[in-house]
């Protein structure tokens, strides 16, 4: 068995799923990347001595929320942008000049309609097909990147900060409640301190009750 054939099924999978779809690969790798990055960042915050406990109560939830919201908004916003940009190009709403001219010259009908598919219904010749694919790939990258900017750099920071603020307040309140409880317990359990125990005080303490009887 050759070295190359060892990876055959993996290579075929890659060709089938990512070989022509740029945006899909960016979405999938982005999600896994965030989870890994968040895990490393949480460790870094937790072990940073220069950050106070109170600040850690904000920064750790902020980091965790960042990963979670990023994944959600990436699927909702970025995927929507990717789907919309793909749909616009595939149905012929948004095209480059050579492809539009080809479709018009060949009197292709329903271009731009919801059900139209340039690849299926356009009867493109090889040269125009190449131009169409190149244009579609570019629009796909731009759509995915614009969606990513909106979701990762605007929507996510706003939501993650809200979540982190809420978590910090909740944890601070819980800590305060715990501290008050400890203080109360300390006051209740206080035993009177005898500065200089003598035989008399010891006897009074030990037999005081029985002597009274």
């Amino acid at each position, binding site marked *: 068995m050759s070295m190359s054939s060892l990876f055959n099924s993996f290579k075929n999978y890659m060709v089938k799923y990512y070989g022509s779809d740029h945006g899909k690969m960016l979405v999938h790798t982005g999600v896994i990347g965030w989870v890994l990055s968040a895990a490393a960042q949480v460790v870094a915050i937790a072990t940073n001595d220069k950050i106070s406990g109170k600040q850690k109560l904000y920064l750790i939830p902020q980091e965790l929320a960042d990963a979670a919201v990023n994944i959600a908004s990436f699927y909702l916003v970025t995927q929507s942008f990717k789907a919309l940009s793909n749909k616009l190009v595939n149905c012929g709403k948004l095209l480059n000049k050579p492809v539009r001219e080809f479709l018009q010259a060949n009197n292709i009908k329903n271009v731009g309609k919801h059900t139209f598919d340039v690849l299926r219904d356009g009867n493109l010749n090889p040269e125009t097909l190449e131009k169409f694919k190149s244009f579609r790939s*570019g629009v796909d990258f731009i759509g995915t990147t614009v969606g990513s900017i909106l979701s990762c750099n605007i929507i996510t920071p706003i939501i993650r900060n809200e979540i982190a603020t809420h978590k910090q307040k909740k944890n601070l309140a819980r800590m305060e409640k715990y501290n008050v409880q400890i203080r109360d317990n300390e006051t209740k359990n206080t035993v009177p301190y005898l500065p200089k125990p003598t035989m008399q005080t010891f006897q009074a303490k030990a037999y005081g009750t029985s002597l009274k009887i």
Partner: protein
Amino acid sequence: MSNINNINFIGRMSSAMSSTVLSRIPNMTIANKKVLNAINTVGAKFSSPENRLILGASALMTQPFIDASNKKVDEETRKVSVARTVAKIIAGTFTGYFVRAGCIKLIDYMTKLPNEVVNPKTFGGKLKTLFTPDAAKSGILKDLTKYKNALGTILALGVMLVTNFLIDAPLTKYLTNKFVDYIHKNDAKREEKA
């Protein structure tokens, strides 16, 4: 059964909605040569490293300001949060870009078409076609650019599993502390002047 009906209903609704939205968008044609060249270049040459750079640059323009405007936390926490966000963006973009670009280069070296390899039977020759898919060897797949980018990005993910912990996070920590020190020094100077 009712679930299937609901799903069908949602599917029909979403299809109807996208159809309505699409019908309101006019047909657009991009004729400007410069714009077309830019779109084609982006589609042919840009991949995840460039995506990471663009995201990093735009993150620096938005995220620190969003953190700084969160008045629901105290001022000190806000300052640390801004410092950490800037540090994380710089460290993440730096390592993210170089790891992804490096992995794509490595894959490019190991995914040559058979006609590009001078001595295919030597170890070096076999290494150069290690990741070449069968479809390319038989001549069906002629352009391997996107396949290489995808494979490089997947490899980068594996590498980043290590670099996230060994480079990204420690670098973020180091930069955060530097920025926080800088902010504190500036605050002290301002107080002295006041």
